[in-house]
């Protein structure tokens, strides 16, 4: 791991306002993430895990503080620049799989490459390669509703890593999966981390996943209360 952080947050704060009610989700979070890390942000519900992931992914704007991705301040980017940054630097895995129902598994996987403007032959080649690597090549021509939840989440992981982003942000990726499928998915992501050097950041309270990460950041009430490095 290099010394310069891949992502750095400085006093990151986010407060949601509904009418007159202000709900602080993050209250000054400063953290550094390095390339190749396999990190989880853990904490009880409402601790600000998902909010942190959304801010890091450029899906939302902080109320205060800033995020630096490879040294670039995200607060200075316009909406379109943020979209471009998400497209080229960040892979997402969501709790509810979130595949596009009218696209096949192969097309879903290649979708980010299509958005990047990569030619069809190249994106098909790369999508097939990652599907084969994740053991789901046989579903390439199936639509998402024809495969199981675990398989759909594998496709979501394939889509997240196919463009080789700087970091994959995964929000409760195992929450909807049974134990065996969860283990398979965690193994798969760990393998991508070790073999490809892909950087993962999870928001989770799933112990099956927490046991496998090499760094655990704990959030409580929008503040970091722990930051442990493990050897896995």
């Amino acid at each position, binding site marked *: 791991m290099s010394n310069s952080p891949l992502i750095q947050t400085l006093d990151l704060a986010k407060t949601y306002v509904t009418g007159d009610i202000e709900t602080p989700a993050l209250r000054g979070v400063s953290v550094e993430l390095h390339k190749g890390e396999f990190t989880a942000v853990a904490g009880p519900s409402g601790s600000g895990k998902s909010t942190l992931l959304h801010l890091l992914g450029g899906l939302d704007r902080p109320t205060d503080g800033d995020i630096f991705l490879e040294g670039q301040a995200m607060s200075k980017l316009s909406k*379109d620049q943020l*979209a471009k940054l998400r497209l080229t630097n960040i892979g997402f895995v969501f709790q509810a799989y979130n595949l596009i129902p*009218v696209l096949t598994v192969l*097309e879903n996987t290649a979708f980010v490459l299509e958005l990047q403007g990569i030619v069809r032959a190249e994106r098909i080649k790369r999508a097939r390669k990652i599907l084969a690597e994740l053991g789901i090549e046989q579903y390439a021509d199936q639509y998402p509703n024809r495969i199981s939840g675990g398989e759909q989440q594998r496709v979501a992981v394939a889509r997240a890593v196919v463009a080789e982003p700087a970091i994959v942000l995964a929000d409760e990726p195992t929450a909807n999966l049974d134990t065996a499928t969860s283990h398979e998915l965690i193994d798969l992501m760990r393998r991508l981390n070790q073999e490809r050097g892909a950087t993962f950041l999870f928001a989770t309270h799933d112990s099956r996943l927490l046991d496998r990460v090499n760094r655990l950041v704990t959030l409580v009430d929008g503040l970091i209360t722990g930051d442990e490095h493990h050897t896995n």
Partner: protein
Amino acid sequence: MKAAIRHIMRNRRRTILTLLAVLIPVYFLIFMFGFINSMMQDMFETATRFDTGHVQILAEEVKGSGSAMPLMRDTDVALAALASVDGIEWSTVRLDLPALASVGERTRTVYVRGLVPEEIDPVSNMSDRIVEGEFITSDSDGVVVGQELAELLDLTVGDDMVLLGVHPDTSLGAIRAPIVGIFNAPEATMGRSMVIASLATVRRLARSETVASAIVIRVDGVTGPWDTSRLDEVTAALSAALPAGYDVQGWLDLVPFVEAYMTILTPMLVIMAIIFFGLGALVVVNTLYLSVMERTREIGLILALGASRARVMGMVLTEAGIITVAGAFCGALVGVGLVWIVQAFGGIPLWGQMADYMKEMGITPVLNMNIRAIQVLLSAGAMTVVALLAAWLPARKASKLEPMEAMRYVE
């Protein structure tokens, strides 16, 4: 594109509704164009073949002379000028005189039209319109009258008609002429008021062997009411070739009610198009809004993955474009198909009051249709543009969604 087609196929009922919203206005407009074209063409044919020709050379009206239909003392100068102009397909000399027509006890005001039957018949097929008796010839003294006039004067073929010429440019003249035929006039007014005789006969009534009221001309290559460029050229050439004292008028000047119809029809069509296109556009906006609402989470995901707003807008517009183009194409197909079927059956004959009304207007009481390619393209093209403009609103809404809010959206 593939994804857009799959989206379209996903909700077929809504797709069909959107398709119909585009199809119906296109089909309707083509139908209206077909009907109006045919009606105008019919009016044009009736007017130019039976009455006005394309252009007429007339004696210039002198204000205060007491005559709104001045006569030419002779036709030599006008015919010489006509011979010097290119592009003339056909011409004939005609003499129209106002007259009183009496048969037995009954009398009516009429126009006596003097013409050269052998010249007029190939253009108007007047002899085919004779329903009783026969058509006149140049050397016959007889007259033919319309069915309506025959009924009004209670006359029949073989009766004698006394005609009293009352044109202010001529001295009073009177002739007795046998009625040799009754014709089915293409227009009711003509049927009620016109007595047709040979030019020589009517000149006797006018007590002059050279007098004429018009030289009626048909111009080469004029095919319909909107075909005016050749007419303008010939009118200008004739005006230049004729000395003072003559006037050249086009058929629309001579039957101003046709021009009035043509003037009314265009804005009428535009208003109808606006109403139908507007309704179509509302349905397109509505169905696409529904589609965007239903796919809010999916659009949020696409934005989250890094799609630009322009890309999302393009996605919605592509879907709208596919449905719109398909709808416009189907509408054009249905419209042209209907026109083709009506043409294949030779039109749909009308009856009753509608038929009478159409004859009053000088239109054959047969619902016929013809359509021009440009009108099909215009109908389909205009609706496509309107529908795409309508689709822009939901497309913009989709592109403005915030990714996380959209992904949390619950229907």
